[in-house]
C-alpha cells in the first residue's frame, strides 16, 4: 500500500494525523509530513479513514 499526497491540495489541516497518527504528522510550521509512505496492511483501516477525513481530498492510495 502506497500513500499519495496531492501537495497542491493539502492545507495542513491534520485530519489525516487524527485518523492515522503512525502514518501522518504535522510539523511545527503546520505542514504535513508523511512518516510512512508505504505502511503495512495493519494501517489500512486508519489510512482509509484519513483519506475520508481529509477536507481537501488531498490523499489517495496506490496498491
Amino acid at each position, binding site marked *: 500500500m502506497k500513500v499519495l499526497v496531492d501537495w497542491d491540495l493539502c492545507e*495542513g489541516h491534520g485530519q489525516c494525523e*487524527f485518523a492515522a497518527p503512525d502514518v501522518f504528522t504535522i510539523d511545527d*510550521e503546520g505542514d504535513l509530513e508523511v512518516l510512512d509512505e508505504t505502511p503495512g496492511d495493519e494501517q489500512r483501516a486508519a489510512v482509509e479513514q484519513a483519506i475520508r477525513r481529509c477536507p481537501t481530498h488531498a490523499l489517495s492510495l496506490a496498491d
Partner: protein
Amino acid sequence: MTTYAEGPQVDLMDLAPFIEGRENEVLAELREHQPLHWNDEPDGPGFWSVTRYDDVVKVVSDPATFINGEGTQILSRKVEGSTSTVHNTDPPRHGPLRKLAAPHLRAMKVKEWQDIIDECVDTLLDDLEARGEAELVKTAAALLPIQVLGQVLGVAREDCDLLLDWTNRVISDDPEYMRGPDEKERARNEMFAYFKELTEKRRSAPAHDLVSKLVHAEFQGEPLPWEDLAAYYFVLVGAGNETTRNLITGTVLAFDEFPDQWDKLVREPELLGSTIEEMLRYVTPIRAMRRTATADVELNGQTIRAGDKVVCWFQAANRDPAVFEDPDVVKIDRTPNDHVGFGWGIHACMGSHLARAEVSTFFRKVLERGIRIRPLAEPDRLHTNQFNAYKRLQVAIEKEDGR
C-alpha cells in the same frame, strides 16, 4: 418551503426535551421523517436542521457554500466583537489562522503535556476518593480541562481558579453564576486584562506555552494584533472547557446506563482508546453547529436559499442507524467509528488530541485505582439546545470489590 404531512411538528427551540434528556427521540424523528427540517424562531429568521450523517458531513465538507463567518451558534449572533475567531472565519483566512496554533496542539505535542495532565488528574481523584461522595462537575469535571488548558496556554497553575471563575461567568447565561447584571461584561474585562499582561510578559520573554507561540507568530507577514490574539485565547478557552468537562460527566452517566460496558472495560483496559471515541459519539458534547448558505442549494428535494441558516446536528448524525449499528447502545469496542463528535472538515476540532489525552487519563486512573464513580441522582442540565452540558451530578466514589 415544504411542510411535511407526516410526523409531529418539531420545534427545536423548545428546550424541554433537551433539559429532560429526551432530545434523541426528537432528533430521531427529524432524521427519519424530516431530514431537512425548517424551524421558525420567535426572534430570528428561522433555520434549517440537517440530521442525517451523510448530509451533515456534506454540509461541513463544503465550506464555500456553507460558511462560518455569519456565526456558528444557532441564534443569530457572533459573540467575539470586532474581529473573528478561527472558528467564525472562512477560507482563505481560516487555514493560515488555524496553522498558528494547530501544530502545537497535535498529538505529538500533546505528549509533552502528559505530566501535567497526570498530576491534575491525580490531585482531583485523591480529592474525590477522600470525599467519598461529591458533586462531580464542580469537584472534578470542570477543573481538569481548565487546569490543563490554562497551563498549555501559559497561565500559572495558581491562577487557573481565576480562569475557571471568569469562564463560568462569561460562558454561562445561568443566573446562578451571576453576581449582577453586568457580570458577564466584567468577567470578560478581567480576563482580557489578565491575558493582556500575560501577552506582554511573553512578548519580552517567550516560554514554552501557546501564548508565547501566538504572540511570536506571523500571520500574513505581520504579528497578530491584540484583538486577534484575544479572540484566539477566548476561542481556545471557550471551546476547550465546557466540551471536555461534559464528556467526562457524560461518560460517567453513560457507564451508569450501560454497566456491562464498564465491567468490560475493567476486564479489557486496552479498550480505553475506542471507549473514548464511543463516548464522543454517544455523548456528543457539541450537539450542533451552525453554517450559513452562500447560494441556493438543493438538499433532500428542498431548496435552501442563500443567506439561510443551516444547523448541523452532530448528535443526530452520531446516532444515524445508516452508519452505526445499534446507535443508541454504547459499545466500547465499536470499530470503525467515524463519529462526528469532533466535527468534520476544515473546522474539525483543533483540541481533539488534548481532549482525548485529558479524558482518557482521567478514566485510566479511575481504572488503575480500582474505583467506580456512580451517579446518585439525575444530572442537572444546562438550558441549551446546542450543547450537551451538565451543571451538576451528584456521585459516589466506590472502591470496587476484588480490584
